[in-house]
C-alpha cells in the first residue's frame, strides 16, 4: 500500500467514525469525502463499500445523484455560477464567459492543468444579492466584472478559498419589513417552558386551533400533522426540519436560520415534546454550507443550557437532540419523502404515498416533517396563544409570511407580511415600477400578469412558499420560461417516465423555439407534454414542471409566437449548425464555410 493510499484510508476511516459507520449517514460521509478530495475516487468507494456493507454500485448510485458530488476528477477550484433567472438578469452569463476566457477553459470542463472547473448550478438562494456563485462550495455574492477578475487571479495564484477576502462571502439579511417572526425577541427556552406547562396534547390542540398551515407551499394543517404523528404506531419518532430551500427565488429560510436559529430549534423541540420524538434533523441545503458551523454553535449553546439533550429543562424523560444533515445539490430533496430518502443516505427519489411520513417516515418510523418557517410559526403560536396568532393574517391563512423579493425592483430582500397582502402592495413596498409579471412561489408556482396584481398572497388565492420574482417590461417572458424549463429538466430525479423524458423533451422543444426553428407544431407539442406531465408524474416536480410554460403562454403568447417560423413544421436539425464542429476544427468561419439557408 502506498503512503498516499494509506493516508486516504485514514481520512476515510476518520470520516466513517464521525458518522458511526452508519449506512444511513452515507450521503454525509460522501459529502465529507468530496470536501476533502475534490472528487470521490473509485478506491474510496471500494473502501466505503467494505466498511459500510453497502454494494459499491449503490454508493456510486447515490454519489451520481447529487450535483455536488463528483465521480470524475474536478478542478482544484470548482466554480459554480448560480443560474436562476434573477442571476441572469443581473448579468451572470457574461460574467461566467469572462471568467472562462480569463482562465482559458470551457464551461463544464476542467482546465488542462487541472486547476479549475467552471459550470452553472441551480439557484443558490442569493437572488437579492446576485449574481452569485459557489467556490468550492462556499457562497459568494454580488459578483461584478471586477470581483470575477479578482477571483480569477486568486485561483491562478492558487490562493486557498479560505484566504479569499471576507467581503466576497458577505451574505446580507436585507430585511425591509419585519413582523412577529423576524422581530421575535424569544429568550431561548421560553416557548418550551410554556409547552411543558401546557402538556403535549394541549400543544397539538393550540397548534390546531391556531390554524397554522405548512409554509413550504402545500399548506397542510401543522396541528393535524403533529397529531397524526403523535398517534401513529412506532418505536422511535423523528422531527425533521426541511431547510432544503431549493425553489428558485426563495431565500427566506436562509434569513430565518441566520437571524432566528433559536426560534427554529425551539419550534423543533416543541414539536418533539408534542409528538414524543427523541431524534431531530435539520436538513440544510448544500448551498447553505456556510451556515453549518454557526448553526452547530447554536445547537451546542442549547445543549449547554439544557434545552437539548437528556431531561430537557429538568423534565424527566424529555430527551431530544438535533443533528444537521447537509444536502448536496438536488432540488427534489425539498419534496418531503425524497428528503427522508436523502436523510437515510439514499438517492433522493420521492416515495410512493400512502403511507405518509407521519406514520412511515425516517427509517419507516413516525416522522413530523415541516419547513423552517413552519417551526418558527409553531413556536410563535405557542408564544402568542392560538387566538392572537389567528388574529394575524386571514381566515384560512393565519399568521405572517416571509416573502423573498427579487428581480426588477430597487429594494430586493425579505418582507414579512400578515397573510392576505396583495401583490400590488408588495410591488409598491419594494419600489418596483413598470412591472410586467411576477412569478409567485418560484417556477413551480404561478406567473401572474398586471391584470392580476390585485390578488392576495394566501391559501385562499395565491398560495406561496415565499418566492416573489419581479419582471419589468424590458424582460422577455419566453426567456424566463426557458430558464425554468431548463431548471426542471436538470432537477428531475429520473424515476418516472413522464418527468424524466417529458422535462427533457420540453427543454428540447423550448430550445428549438429559442433557436428560431419553432413552429405551431411545437406549441402543440408543448401543450401535449404539459398534459402528460400533469396527469401522470410521480410527484409535484413533474406535475408543476410545465407551469412556467403554461402560464407564460397564457399571458404572453406573443413572446412565443414572435419566435415561430410561419411554417407548420420545421425539423429541429439545423444543417448549418451541424457544420459548426467542422468549422471549429478547420478554424474557418468565412461565408464559404456556411450553408446559405438555415434549416433544411
Amino acid at each position, binding site marked *: 500500500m502506498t503512503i498516499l493510499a494509506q493516508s486516504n484510508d485514514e481520512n476515510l476511516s476518520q470520516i466513517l467514525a464521525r458518522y458511526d459507520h452508519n449506512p444511513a449517514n452515507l450521503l454525509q460521509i460522501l459529502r465529507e469525502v468530496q470536501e476533502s478530495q475534490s472528487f470521490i475516487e*473509485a478506491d474510496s*468507494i*471500494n473502501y466505503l463499500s467494505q466498511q459500510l456493507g453497502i*454494494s*459499491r*454500485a*449503490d454508493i*456510486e*448510485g447515490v*454519489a*451520481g*445523484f447529487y*450535483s455536488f458530488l463528483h465521480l470524475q476528477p474536478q478542478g482544484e477550484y470548482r466554480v459554480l455560477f448560480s443560474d436562476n433567472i434573477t442571476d441572469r438578469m443581473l448579468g451572470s452569463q457574461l460574467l461566467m464567459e469572462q471568467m472562462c476566457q480569463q482562465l482559458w477553459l470551457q464551461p463544464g470542463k476542467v482546465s488542462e492543468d487541472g486547476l479549475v472547473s467552471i459550470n452553472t448550478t441551480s439557484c443558490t438562494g442569493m437572488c437579492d444579492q446576485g449574481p452569485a456563485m459557489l467556490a468550492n462550495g462556499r457562497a459568494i455574492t454580488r459578483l461584478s466584472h471586477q470581483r470575477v477578475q479578482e477571483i480569477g487571479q486568486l485561483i491562478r495564484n492558487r490562493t486557498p478559498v479560505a484566504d479569499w477576502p471576507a467581503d466576497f462571502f458577505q451574505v446580507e439579511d436585507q430585511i425591509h419589513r419585519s413582523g412577529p417572526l423576524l422581530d421575535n425577541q424569544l429568550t431561548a427556552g421560553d416557548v418550551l417552558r410554556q409547552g411543558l406547562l401546557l402538556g403535549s396534547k394541549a400543544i397539538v390542540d393550540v397548534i390546531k386551533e391556531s390554524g397554522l398551515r405548512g409554509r413550504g407551499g402545500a399548506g397542510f394543517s401543522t396541528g393535524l400533522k403533529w397529531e397524526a404523528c403523535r398517534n401513529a404506531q412506532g418505536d422511535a419518532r423523528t422531527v425533521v426540519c426541511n431547510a432544503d430551500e431549493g425553489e428558485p427565488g426563495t431565500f427566506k429560510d436562509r434569513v430565518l436560520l441566520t437571524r432566528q436559529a433559536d426560534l427554529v430549534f425551539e419550534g423543533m423541540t416543541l414539536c418533539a415534546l408534542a409528538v414524543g420524538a427523541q431524534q431531530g434533523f435539520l436538513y440544510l441545503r448544500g448551498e447553505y454550507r456556510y451556515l453549518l458551523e454557526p448553526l452547530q454553535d447554536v445547537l451546542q449553546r442549547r445543549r449547554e443550557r439544557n434545552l437539548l439533550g437528556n431531561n430537557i429543562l429538568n423534565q424527566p424523560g424529555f430527551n431530544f437532540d438535533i443533528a444537521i444533515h447537509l444536502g448536496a445539490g*438536488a432540488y427534489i430533496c425539498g419534496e418531503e419523502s425524497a428528503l427522508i430518502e436523502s436523510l437515510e443516505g439514499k*438517492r433522493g427519489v420521492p416515495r*410512493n404515498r*400512502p403511507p405518509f411520513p407521519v406514520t412511515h417516515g425516517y427509517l419507516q418510523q413516525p416522522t413530523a416533517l415541516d419547513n423552517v418557517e413552519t417551526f418558527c410559526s409553531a413556536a410563535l403560536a405557542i408564544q402568542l396563544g392560538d387566538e392572537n396568532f389567528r388574529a394575524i393574517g386571514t381566515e384560512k391563512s393565519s399568521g405572517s409570511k416571509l416573502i423573498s423579493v427579487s428581480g426588477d425592483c430597487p429594494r430586493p430582500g425579505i418582507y414579512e407580511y400578515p397573510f392576505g397582502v396583495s401583490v400590488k402592495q408588495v410591488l409598491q413596498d419594494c419600489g418596483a415600477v413598470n412591472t410586467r409579471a411576477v412569478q409567485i412561489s418560484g417556477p413551480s408556482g404561478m406567473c401572474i400578469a398586471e391584470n392580476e396584481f390585485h390578488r392576495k398572497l394566501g391559501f385562499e388565492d395565491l398560495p406561496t412558499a415565499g418566492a416573489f420574482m419581479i419582471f419589468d417590461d424590458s424582460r422577455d417572458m419566453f426567456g424566463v420560461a426557458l430558464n425554468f424549463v431548463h431548471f426542471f*429538466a*436538470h*432537477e*428531475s*430525479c*429520473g*424515476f*418516472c*417516465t*413522464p418527468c*424524466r*423524458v*417529458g*422535462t*427533457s*423533451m420540453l427543454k*428540447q422543444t423550448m430550445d428549438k423555439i429559442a433557436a428560431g426553428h419553432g413552429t405551431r407544431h411545437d406549441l402543440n*407539442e408543448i401543450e*401535449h407534454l404539459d398534459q*402528460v406531465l400533469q*396527469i*401522470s*408524474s*410521480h410527484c409535484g416536480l413533474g406535475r408543476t414542471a410545465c407551469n412556467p410554460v403554461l402560464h407564460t403562454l397564457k399571458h404572453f403568447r406573443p413572446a412565443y409566437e414572435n419566435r415561430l417560423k410561419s411554417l407548420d413544421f420545421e425539423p*429541429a436539425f439545423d444543417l448549418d449548425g451541424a457544420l459548426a464542429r467542422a468549422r471549429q476544427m478547420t478554424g474557418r468561419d468565412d461565408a464559404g464555410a456556411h450553408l446559405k439557408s438555415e434549416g433544411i
Partner: protein
Amino acid sequence: MSDTFQLDGKSVPFEAGQTVMQAALAAGHYIPHLCYHPEFKPHGSCKLCTVKVNGRTMASCTMPAEANLSVESDIDELNDLRRTLVQMLFAEGNHFCPSCEKSGNCVLQALGYDLEVHTAGFRHMFPERPLDFTHPDILLDFNRCILCELCVHASAEVDGKHIFAFSGRGIDKHLIINSTSGQLKDTDMALTDKAMQVCPVGVILKKRVGFSVPIGQRRYDKSPISAQALVDAPRTGAVHE
C-alpha cells in the same frame, strides 16, 4: 366474502393488501403495464398503468385496493397517455426492433402494437450508450434500457448479488454494474440468475443465441400482450420483498 371495487364499470373482488393492479389481473382484467412484474414489489415508475380514481390519476400498480373505489382505465384519455408514454420510452433510448434479439418477446414492442402506437411521435434523442460485452456468457445492450428497475430488484432480492444499480439523475439516469471496472465480467453474474429473466426489453441477453425462434413465432406474435398478461398473472402469488 371479499370486498370489491369498480373497474370500468365491472366489479372486481380484492383481498386486503392487494393493489388495484394485482386485484384486477387476478380477476382477469387487463390494465396495461410495463415495469410491474407479478413477482416483485411494485414501485410504479413507468406510469403506463395510470388509472383514474374518483377523478384523480394514479399508478394502479402501487395504489392499494379499497372497497367501492370507482376506477377508470380503458378510456381514451388514458390510452392516449399510455401511447405517449410508450413513444417517450422509444424516443429516449435506441430501439431498432428488426435487429433486436428480443423482438417478438419484448414488452415495450408488444405494448406499442397493442396500444396502436403508429408513429414515433417525438424526436428521438439518440443517446450514446456503449454496450457491455465483457462477460463470457452475457451481453448488456443499454441502448434498450427503459429503467424499469426489475434487474436491480431481481439481482438484489432473489439472487442476493446486487449486480445492478442506478446512477445519474433525470434524463442521465442509467444502469450501472457493481464492480470497480464497471464491467459485467468482474461480477459473479450467471446465466441461471433471476436477473437474466426479468428484463422486459432487450438489455440483458444470453450470448450466442440469435433468432433460434423465428420472428413470427415468438411470445407476443402469438397473442397480444393484453391477452398474454392475463395468462401469466398469478391468481395468488408470493412477492419478493
